[in-house]
């Protein structure tokens, strides 16, 4: 449900940009989705293909590529960066408090069209 709404935003944004450029076909859309973004890539992909099929020729056969962005922290004390994954945002090097550097992205990175 939620992913379908996100897919709708992707189709709308890419579709309007592609039409503005006079493209007749979008062959690939690349998204950047963070590990902590609370989004299921499979559902997003299913929603994307469903909505793309309703869009006619512009999105016929469009490939969706999802790049997963790992959750990474940066320590506010010592400046080192580290994977936040399951261990969280406490710096493994010095124990200082970290802040999230990446991992909640939900972006359209690029698309290919002609």
């Amino acid at each position, binding site marked *: *449900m939620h992913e379908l709404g996100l897919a709708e*935003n992707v189709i709308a944004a890419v579709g309007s940009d592609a039409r503005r450029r006079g493209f007749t076909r979008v062959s690939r859309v690349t998204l950047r989705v963070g590990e902590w973004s*609370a989004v299921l890539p499979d559902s997003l992909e299913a929603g994307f293909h469903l909505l793309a099929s309703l869009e006619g020729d512009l999105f016929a056969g469009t490939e969706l590529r999802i790049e997963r962005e790992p959750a990474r922290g940066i320590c506010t004390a010592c400046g080192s960066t580290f994977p936040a994954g399951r261990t*969280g945002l*406490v710096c493994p090097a010095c124990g200082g408090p970290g802040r999230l550097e990446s991992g909640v992205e939900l972006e*359209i990175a690029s698309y290919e069209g002609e």
Partner: protein
Amino acid sequence: MEVKVVERILKVNDAVAQANRSRFDAAGVLAVNIIGSPGAGKTTVLERTVEGLKGRFALACIEGDPYTTRDAERIAALDCPVVQINTQGGCHLDASLVSQALEQVDLGAADLLLIENVGNLLCPSQYDLGEHLTVVVLSVTEGADKPEKYPAAFQRARAVIVSKIDALALTDVDLDDVSASIRRFNPQAEVFPLSARTGEGVEAWLQWLAKQVRAAR
């Protein structure tokens, strides 16, 4: 031809959220987005917050709920202006739903706007409503592992209320474990263990929130 886009999928939402925030700022209102699972005790915490602060500040609430007006009725019973948003099954509030609700809120007359999000720890973490700060309500009966399971919600929170501490003895949860787990995913978060039922711990939360309201004026 490759076209670099790099824009947030929620760009439209973010723009509306920014407009909401500008309205709050212009009116000198602190807006708080309250996130938590169904049954975490969000509405009860809200009731205690309204009761505790209404003598000191002018309050307003927006109640997000999939269906029913039950929560709004509870807040209205405390003589607090409240607007109900029904998402009709939707899993989160978004900025435009809040924007529509704001048509019925007298922001000029308010110091603090409390927005209760839909009971969910996933989607609400993605949608900026234009709030100044996010508060997560986590009840002890949900277990200590929630920050690890829902990092985005906890990472976003300025404060985490650990609710229902009167039920601690019925669980195998340890308050120190919950706090440690929260701080692992958000080292800067303020943590307020409290019981909205007995009142234990509520004052510390109210004092902290009051300080944020005064700073936003």
